[in-house]
Every structure is written in C-alpha cells, then in structure tokens.
C-alpha cells in the first residue's frame, strides 16, 4: 500500500545475511535435506531475537517530501469528496505531502502487525502513528520510538499543561498527544430515564443483563477502581487492582454485565441490547448526532478516565523531521479547532476553544469537546504499568472476558 522507498541498504537483507553467516550449521543441515526446520528457525529468530534496543534510522526528511501517517478511522477532518482539508492546507503551506492511512483499528492488532519490524529497527511503512497512552508507554519502554526535537515544534508550547509531563514519557520527549477523550457512563434516555451518576448505579437490578463495559482494561478497571476510592494516577498496587477485579468478576458472573466490547459497543447501544454502559465520550457525541440525542453521558462523581492517542515516530522511520513539522502544524490552535469540529474528541491544544468560537460556537460550548474545569477535575489518567504489572493485570482481566476466571 505504501510507496516503496529506495533504501540504501535494506536492513532486512542485512539481517538475513548476518544470520546466514552465523548459521553455518543451519545451512549445512538445510543442504542435508532438513530444510524446513532451519528456515523456520531462521525466520523465527528474525522475529523475536535480541533483547538489544533498535537504533533510529537515518533521517532523510530533506530529500523525501512525503509523510506516511497511520491513524484511527474518523479521526481527522474529511470533506464530502473524501479529502482531508487540514492535510491539504499543510501541503500548500510546507510543500510536504501526507499519505494519510486509516490503518489503526485496534492498538493490539496494529502492534501485532509491526512489532517484529520495530524490534529490528526496520521501517514499518509509517513515519507517524497515533496510538493510545499505554501502547505508547510500552513502545517507549522497548525503545521503538524516536526522540523528538522540540526545537522543531515551537507550537508545542500550546500543549495543555496537564499533559506536558506524563509518567510514561517525562517531558514528552517521544510522544505528543493527538486527541483524547474520557471514559464515563452513558445511558439510554428513553429506556432508562432515571440516568446514572456513579459506577455503582450500573449494578441495580433493573439493569441486569443490559449493562455494557469496555474491553479496554484501563477504562473499565479505572472506573471501577475510582468508584472504590482509588486514585488511579497515584501509587496503587496489586491489592487495589484485585479488589476491583473481584467486583468486576462478580458483576459478569451474576449476569449484570452482559457485553464487554471494544469499538463495537456502539452497535449494542444503538440496538438497545445495552441500556447503560461505560463508554468513550466522543462516540456518544457522534451517536447522538446520528440518532437524535438519545443518550446521556456523565463523568461519574468519583471520577472517570482520561486517555490520549499520541503521535510517535517509529524507530525505523527516516522522516522524523517532517513529522515534527506536521505536529507543529496541528498544534496551531486554528488548525486544532478545525480538526476538533469534525472528530468531537478532546483537543490537547490550548487556544483551540477560542479558535472554535469562530467556526461553530455551539461546539465550543460542548463540555465533551472542550471540557470545563469541573469535568477535567474529575478525569484521571490511569498510571503507567511496568512490564510485570501489564502482564498480570491483563491476564486477570482477559480471564474474565474469556469466562476462564
């Protein structure tokens, strides 16, 4: 799909040659006739080889005027002809063209596709990709991202103060937020007019079997933990997580929670299998726009989660400098407002609200797109997990999703 680039020396070929040199024994066995096993070993060794961190590719931004940008669906402004107005304006302004691809539909499956190339420091066919906090955290831990030169991104000064320093990326050296959102509670206003104010309201008998939660661990567990009085950004550990997972397990096995889904939870809200749910704010804005203001949304009193999708430059990309220019462009408040007017998520750019006033004053007043201080005070970021925690917590959460706990 991506335009192939004339690389000076393909790292894949280099790797293969090196492997062939190291694997004299394997080659003799191969010649002796047991080819399959050796080939498999060689291929497998390619994929999960060394523990050493890969090194960043040489930057050829000056010669290559194309930025390949992988992003989620419906996550940028689109006009009726299918063009991206802000991307086109960027090209007119800088001469850099952007190959924008809706290549990400799930953090895990995107990561699964590119991780072997990342581990070898190869080009994954994208110079910029927007992924969620926790996935960015993992990629930074593994050394799969390039260090950004803030001198090339002067507009980064417009980044919301609360997002300038995150635990997985101090000082935003490697990642810059693209859009963010809340996880909170939504309910069907026609079928369940009494509404919700806290996570505990989901566990009432009237909603038995009609409750949905997100398959994203940090949002579902984050909301339950907040409800149990845990500060999810602070120092909590195994004990707090286990208490929340016990509650979650009980609600699933009692049949109170029926649907645990990723993006497809919107279908359940639309067909009314789910009457009350843990959801992402931006989806509710869009669903209400399509179905006539049918759902209510609230960030629970005890708190909701706040997440961001962040730009990162994959380790093998030769176009980091161009990407920095792209990020700088999108941190112009006027441009950020243009994007926010379309995608309905939270923009991390200070001044976008004022710029939005000129485009659409009603959107500028929408607390889900430009949250007020009271809402922001209730939103918490799930703290970064280390490798061991990520494994054990994920395993416990997935066990419930698979009905194996």
């Amino acid at each position, binding site marked *: 799909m991506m335009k192939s680039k004339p690389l000076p020396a393909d790292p894949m070929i280099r790797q293969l040659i090196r492997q062939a040199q190291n694997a004299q024994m394997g080659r003799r066995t191969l010649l002796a006739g047991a080819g*399959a096993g050796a080939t498999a070993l060689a291929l*497998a060794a390619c994929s999960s080889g060394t*523990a050493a961190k890969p090194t960043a590719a040489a930057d050829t931004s000056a010669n290559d005027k194309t930025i390949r940008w992988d992003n989620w669906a419906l996550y940028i402004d689109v006009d009726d002809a299918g063009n991206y107005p802000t991307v086109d304006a960027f090209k007119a302004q800088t001469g850099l063209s952007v190959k924008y691809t809706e290549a990400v539909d799930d953090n895990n499956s995107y990561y*699964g596709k590119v991780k072997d190339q990342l581990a070898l420091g190869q080009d994954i066919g994208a110079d910029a990709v927007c992924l969620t906090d926790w996935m960015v955290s993992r990629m930074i831990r593994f050394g799969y991202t390039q260090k950004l030169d803030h001198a090339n991104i002067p507009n980064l000064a417009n980044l919301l103060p609360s997002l300038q320093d995150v635990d997985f990326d101090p000082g935003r050296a490697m990642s810059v937020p693209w859009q963010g959102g809340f996880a909170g509670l939504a309910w069907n206003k026609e079928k369940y007019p009494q509404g919700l104010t806290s996570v505990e309201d989901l566990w009432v008998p009237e909603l038995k079997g009609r409750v949905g939660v997100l398959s994203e661990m940090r949002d579902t567990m984050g909301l339950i933990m907040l409800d149990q009085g845990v500060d999810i950004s602070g120092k909590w550990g195994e004990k707090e997580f286990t208490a929340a997972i016990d509650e979650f397990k009980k609600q699933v096995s009692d049949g109170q929670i029926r649907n645990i889904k990723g993006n497809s939870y919107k279908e359940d809200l639309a*067909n009314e299998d789910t009457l009350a749910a843990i959801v992402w704010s931006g989806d509710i804005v869009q669903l209400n726009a399509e179905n006539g203001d049918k759902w209510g949304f609230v960030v629970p009193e005890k708190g909701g989660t706040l997440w961001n999708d962040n730009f990162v430059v994959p380790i093998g990309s030769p176009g980091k400098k161009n990407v920095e220019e792209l990020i700088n462009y999108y941190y112009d408040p006027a441009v950020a407002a243009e994007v926010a007017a379309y995608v309905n998520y939270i923009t991390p750019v200070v001044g976008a609200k004022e710029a939005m006033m000129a485009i659409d004053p009603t959107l500028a007043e929408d607390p889900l797109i430009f949250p007020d201080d009271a809402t922001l005070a209730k939103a918490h970021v799930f703290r970064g997990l280390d*490798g061991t925690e990520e*494994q054990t917590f994920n395993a416990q959460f*997935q066990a419930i999703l698979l009905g*194996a706990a």
Partner: protein
Amino acid sequence: MAFAAFSSTTAPSTDPVARRRSPVALFLLLPGILYLVLFFLTPLVSLLLTSFQAPREFGDIGQYDYAFRWQNYVEVVTTYWPHIVRSFSYALAATFFALLISYPLAYFIGVKARKWPLLQSLMLVLVIAPFFISFLLRTLAWKQLFADESFVVQSLKALSLLGPEAHVTGTAFSVIFGLTYNFIPFMTLPLYTTLERLDVRYLEAGSDLYASPFQVFQKVTIPLSMPGIVAGTLLTFIPAAGDYINAGRDFLGGTGTQMMGNVIEANFLVLQNYPSAAALSIILMTVILVIVSIYVKRSGTEELL
C-alpha cells in the same frame, strides 16, 4: 462412478502410469511443494518451537526465549479445558444441525429437481448467494436480528417462549446458530455433488425388492451419498471448531461462550502470550487430526483423502 469410489471390493488402482517415477511429474510438483514448505511447513515448525518457549527472566510483556518448556501445554489445558470442550461440542452440534438442514435440501436439488434444470440451477445459486456478502456482515446482521428489542426476540417473549429477562445474543444458542448458518453452504455443496450423481435405478431396485422407503433410504441412499456426507461434515466441523468470529464477543457470543479461537486470539494479540497461543493451536490441530482420522477410518472413505 460414485459407487466404485467407496466400494471395498474394488481392486486398488494398478495403472502403470501412476506408478512410474517421472522427472517431469516431480518438476511439475515443485511449485506446490515449495509453496507447502514455505507457507505450511515453515510456519508449523515455527509454531511448534514457539509453543515451547519460556518467558524471559525479568522480561517485559511479549518477551519469550526458545526453550523446552512443555509445561506450557499443561498450563493451557488446565486453564482453558472448558473452552476446548466447548469448541468441539459447539462444532459437533453445528455440524449435526447443518447436516440435518442440508441433506433434504441437497436431495431436493440433486434428485427431485432433476426434471427442472432451471429450478435446479436457481436453487444452487440461492445456496451459494450468501457468499456474495461478507461473512462478517452476515454474522453482524444476525446479531441485529437477535437483539433484545428486535422483532424476533420481542415476539418470542410475547409468546412466553422466552422469559422476560432472557436474551438471545451472547448465548450458546446464538453461537451454534451462527456456526450452523455460516457453514450450511459448505455442507450442502458436497452433498449435492454426490446426490446429483445418485442413480435412481438403485432406489427403484430397492423398492422392487420390497424395501420400505425408509429402508431404501437407509440401505441405499445414505451409503451412496457417504462421500458427500463425509466431505460436508469435514468441511463444516474443522473450520467450526477453530472459528472465533461467531463466538466472538463482538458478534454472537458472550463471556460464557468463548471458544478456542477466541482464547488463541486473546493470548496472541492482547496478552502477547505467544507460547500459550501456539500450544493451544497445536492442541487444536492435533485433536482435529485425531478426530478426523478416526471418523474417516470408521466411515470407510479413506479414498477421499
């Protein structure tokens, strides 16, 4: 022809051409062999090696090293045995229902409709027609049809066939239904091809010898259509056992209906636990292989393979 194919009295082929080793034949086989080595054997060996990997000491998520950790197999079986059992029972149920629905259908198209070739072609097109729409879309459509507020479920509730709090999506019923529905064409087509060649004179001969219609069916039609039954059940059972779409939580399943495919997917994509995913895949493959070999041996249709 069909009769000769499974009859045990037929002598094994002694065609001299088939026995001669020809370099040309080997050469022609080369692309196929290379393809199999590269895209079947290599991944299989890689999968087997992965299934014995051990977690790296102080490693991060998804970091494993080559080892011989056979305990991986013990762990996945003790953790996921309900999913293993569920996979095979759902697949078995779906195969049974698909056969129950497909056999009369294939019989009608292949035997009864012979007099009207146009009707025959039309019905065949109808069997194949669902393939023109993506399998995922059709499954999602069923999810909508079975939604709590849908006409189907509301009617069943009005008739008290379903309790007021009952639901259809996310239950074993909807998953088996989805599997059956999605694999009916795979069952019908092989059945049709054998039944289409069924020589009705054998049936007439059966009746002439005072066999009741049931006896004719049991003693003549079923044995004659055995190759189709075996092919159809295999084409249904094998993919159904490994299916993860119908049982997926995003489609017709729920947390209580997850099959092996879903467990493998979660271990592979979300948990990055490649050894467990690989061990489960190997187990799935081995169990299917054993079941299929026994089945084919018992039904006396080895020639099919």
